[in-house]
């Protein structure tokens, strides 16, 4: 187990600008955590700090147990696929993760089946549609059986039907026991998938609450304004 994740006075600045204000919190297993906030609030940076793609300017990101990086996966807003088949993209991730050669392909096929891309296995990954590429990115994560899955606005550039398919896969991750941490500014999606909300505003987590409480009775004025669809800075 690499959870719970502890952030200890984590702050991040770039180019002399403070992007994440000093932040301490603990994130445990189980609940699906939604990082909610307007564009530019710092959601992506916060997730990258947790995942280790960015190093905090000060403070500490602490996971439990050995090799925590291997037990996490991340799916980005725009999937990055190698110029090879869909299957080969998943196999590559398994190879990097140290899975024995003979087991890679069966596991990759199983992951493609999970996201409904089995019939696309031999197609070049980069000619798949945007929604299919995002599902392929999820299959690549699925094959790794991560304990924690980070999702950075995974459906921001997709149409409603592709979004539904992606959300179904995210639920499957949750059902399989993976801790899901997802950044989004889509209130409907937050409500459909989330158990708890971290509301980020100008680099600060201004509110943390259960999903129902958050939408019914937001404690902060910023979150209340965001939910009402008002621009918090207007």
């Amino acid at each position, binding site marked *: 187990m690499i959870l719970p994740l502890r952030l200890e006075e984590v702050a991040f600045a770039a180019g002399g600008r403070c992007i994440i204000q000093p932040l301490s919190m603990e994130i445990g297993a189980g609940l699906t955590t939604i990082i909610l906030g307007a564009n530019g609030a710092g959601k992506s940076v916060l997730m*990258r700090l947790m*995942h280790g*793609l960015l190093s905090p300017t000060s403070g500490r990101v602490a996971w439990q147990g050995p090799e925590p*990086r*291997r037990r996490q*996966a*991340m799916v*980005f807003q725009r999937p*990055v*696929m*190698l*110029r*090879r088949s869909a299957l080969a993209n998943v196999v*590559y*991730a398994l190879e*990097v*993760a140290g899975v024995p050669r003979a087991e890679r392909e069966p596991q990759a096929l199983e992951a493609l089946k999970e996201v409904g891309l089995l019939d696309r296995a031999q197609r*070049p*990954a*980069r*000619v798949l549609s945007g929604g299919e590429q995002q599902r392929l990115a999820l299959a*690549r994560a699925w094959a790794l059986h991560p304990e924690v899955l980070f999702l950075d606005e995974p459906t921001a550039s997709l149409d409603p039907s592709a979004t539904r398919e992606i959300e179904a896969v995210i639920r499957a991750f949750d059902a399989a026991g993976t801790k899901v941490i997802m950044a989004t500014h889509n209130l409907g999606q937050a409500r459909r998938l989330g158990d708890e909300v971290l509301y980020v505003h100008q680099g600060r987590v201004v509110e943390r609450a259960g999903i129902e409480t958050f939408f019914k009775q937001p404690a902060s004025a910023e979150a209340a304004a965001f939910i009402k669809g008002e621009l918090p800075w207007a």
Partner: protein
Amino acid sequence: MRHLRMDSILQSLLAAGALIASADPTLIQIVALSLAVSLSAVALAAFIGLPLGAAIAVGRFPGRRAMVVILNAMMGLPPVVVGLVVYLLLSRAGPLGEFGLLFTPSAMVIAQTILILPIVAALSRQAVEDAWHEYEEQLRSLGVEGVRAAVTVLWDIRFSLLTAVLAGLGRASAEVGAVMIVGGNIDGVTRVMTTTIALETSKGDLPLALGLGIVLIAIVLALNAAAYLVKEAAQRRYG
């Protein structure tokens, strides 16, 4: 007067065609040496230029930006100046004079390598930098770092890199200034297509010059067609 000139051009063209059709030994020898020199130069330039371009693309070291600017500027190096510098280095009194390379095909390979190294390095730097910008986060998230990340990215953009190498080959096979100076255009030893064209034209032997000109253009055309087709096929196959 006007008709006469058209006639002589036509005659030369026909004679050039006959030279090519009959596989004239002189013509074959000149074409073969040209290809040997330029292909050797391209192989060397690729061997040095591709890793150099990749290193500059992903490396973070002082003077990197200056290096990128210089590399880009050097893509337009004047061949005669390269020839002159290599001449000075290889001449009897020069620092590398003891090897006796001046006026040999080796000298020509060296000059062309220097000429096209910046092209191969600068174009591959651009390709690797663009790809790295796109792939870096995803690869790091998967736990791919260092040499393995480099190999993955280079393999993924291999067709773009091929284009960079072919651009170098096109430049090498078409230049005349550098090989003329360091090779000396010695009959049967260092005479290549471009230097022969220059010499024969000034002597008035148009058929051989034209024949070589046609072969040269055909080679450059074929190279570019091949590059285009390979890239297009790769695009269709790999996306």
